[in-house]
């Protein structure tokens, strides 16, 4: 099989304005991946399918990379005004400061490609969204590989990546009225997710709090399913 470097070169030769970045994988599996720019992803994918014969898209999945707060020490030079002998003087002073920087998070879609005709693989493709909130959009690869259809629906459902160009982007596993995306790492489960009274103290406490909150709201359905004896 071609190495990722060769594949990168082939892609860049075939799709001139596509930018491809190699993401090294430090583990012993040696499955390095290629990060595509979303804007040219469809062309690159079509080339991979028809040109390099990666005809089989096996696995599509999402990964959530939340915002990371990084604390780093920086040397800062600033101007300090001092009063010396009644005269105002400005002097340069270098201090070390701990600054907190927030590295913006993103959502990532990962595609594992194989070639059935050449019996090769895997080739790992990745695409990143701009952020995790309002610009979580990626092009859908469903027109190129049909197998992406339901797996991209699952990613939309569980991670909230909007796949533009997807023929039928609905929730797959959660129900239609569900609001959040539960596989995100900052997802908070609702207080009524588990009613079953077990000896877990915290579950019991949570169930009680939930019941107390809903008793006033008159949620008869919740009472019926609560069922503590």
């Amino acid at each position, binding site marked *: 099989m071609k190495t990722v470097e060769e594949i990168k070169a082939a892609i860049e030769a075939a799709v001139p304005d596509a930018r491809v970045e190699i993401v090294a*994988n*430090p*583990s*012993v*599996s040696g*499955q390095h991946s290629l990060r595509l720019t979303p804007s040219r992803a469809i062309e690159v994918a079509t080339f991979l399918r028809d040109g390099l014969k990666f*005809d*089989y*898209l*096996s*696995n599509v*999945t999402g*990964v959530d990379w939340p915002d990371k707060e990084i604390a780093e020490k920086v040397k800062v030079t600033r101007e300090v005004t001092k009063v010396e002998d009644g005269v105002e003087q400005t002097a340069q002073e270098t201090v070390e400061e701990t600054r907190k920087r927030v590295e913006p998070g993103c959502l990532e879609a*990962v595609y*594992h490609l194989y070639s*059935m005709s050449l*019996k090769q693989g*895997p080739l*790992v493709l990745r695409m990143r969204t701009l952020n995790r909130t309002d610009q979580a959009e990626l092009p859908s690869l469903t*027109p190129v*590989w*049909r*197998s992406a*259809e*339901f*797996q991209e629906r699952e990613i939309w459902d*569980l991670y909230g990546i909007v796949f533009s160009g997807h*023929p039928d982007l609905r*929730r*797959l*596993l*959660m*129900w239609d009225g569900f609001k959040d995306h*539960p*596989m995100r790492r900052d997802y908070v489960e609702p207080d009524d997710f588990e009613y079953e009274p077990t000896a877990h103290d915290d579950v019991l406490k949570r169930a009680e709090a939930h019941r107390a909150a809903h008793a006033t709201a008159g949620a008869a359905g919740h009472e019926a399913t609560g069922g503590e004896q």
Partner: protein
Amino acid sequence: MTDAKLEFDAAVGAKQEGWNRPPVMEPSGEGGVLELAMGPHHPSTHGVFRMDVALDGERVIRLKPVFGYLHRNHEKLAEGMSYLGSMPFTDRLDYICSLTNNWAYALAVEKLTGQEVPERAEYLRVILGELTRVVNHASSIGFLIQEMGASGTPLMYAFREREKILDLFEALTGARMMCNYMRFGGCRVDASAAWLEATRKVVAGLPGFVDEFEQLLRSNEILMARCQGVGILRPDLAVNAGVTGPLLRASGVNYDIRKVDGYGIYNRFKFRVPLGDHGDVYDRFMIRMLELRESIKILEQALKEIPVGPVMDAKAKIRGFRPKAGEAYGRIEAPKGELGFYLISDGGPNPYRYRVRPPSLINLTILEDMCLGQNVADVVLIFGSVDIVLGEVDR
């Protein structure tokens, strides 16, 4: 590539809409369209699965599968517990084939950490994996025939054999279905000589069972009339849609991960990959029948060659298992298709990302293409020929 598609569309009277999309079919205009929700508690759906079917008379003109009734967020659970803690949960994905699920997960973690698996453990994995395939294919044929209306009898033939194999599983792993047997770098306990002897005895009886099963079903005229030419899947579409396993091979695509990847020690064994010609329900039924025979061949070879030795990598850790940062995708040929696990480690005790690539779900996505233009009674049959377990579809 598109000629077959055009022919097919012309035959069912469909509009063209991209060669890998299901055709859009118009009702014939008489009598209107009947919208029917098959499931989630339909007895033929193997669990809780719903198909929203639009019928023009008896003919299916649209079919949308609806998933999620058995969703329990297996992947989220796995991200909250240790690598070892997810192992018993993998048993509950495809609960007919728990040992191959264990194997796929162990293989993915071994790819991530680079652990070595001792020789004897590899042989035990092959033996258990192929016994699982026998269990799965025999009962899946039984279910298929049951869905055709032959309620009980053929299924009981399959279950009689399955019972003997489950007893073997229990004697080795302690449980009949939720085996939780394989570990990262080997297997949990060693098989005794008595167990291997008992397995040899059961395997020696399997060819007789397959003969009997074939005699019972293969040339049955009713079965042929119901199955042949029903639910055809074109090979180009099957590849594009990511279909794997017996379903793909019945469409004539030679792709068996045991041969392609040769994971474990599969390249040591002599076996053939049966392929179908037509890609219809009958081909899928026959592929499973033939794969039963190939599995028996592998079992005989493995049971003859199994060496003595340890079954666990001596350096394997049970507590405090922390793979180095990185990612790995490991896959095996599970009885239902390609079962893959994708893991991202950030160096901590829990996986950062844990993903199951479920063959049942992806094989089901092609259901609409296979059912369009068929009669509603055949939907049950085509669905049965896909061979799914809802625990794996919804995770």
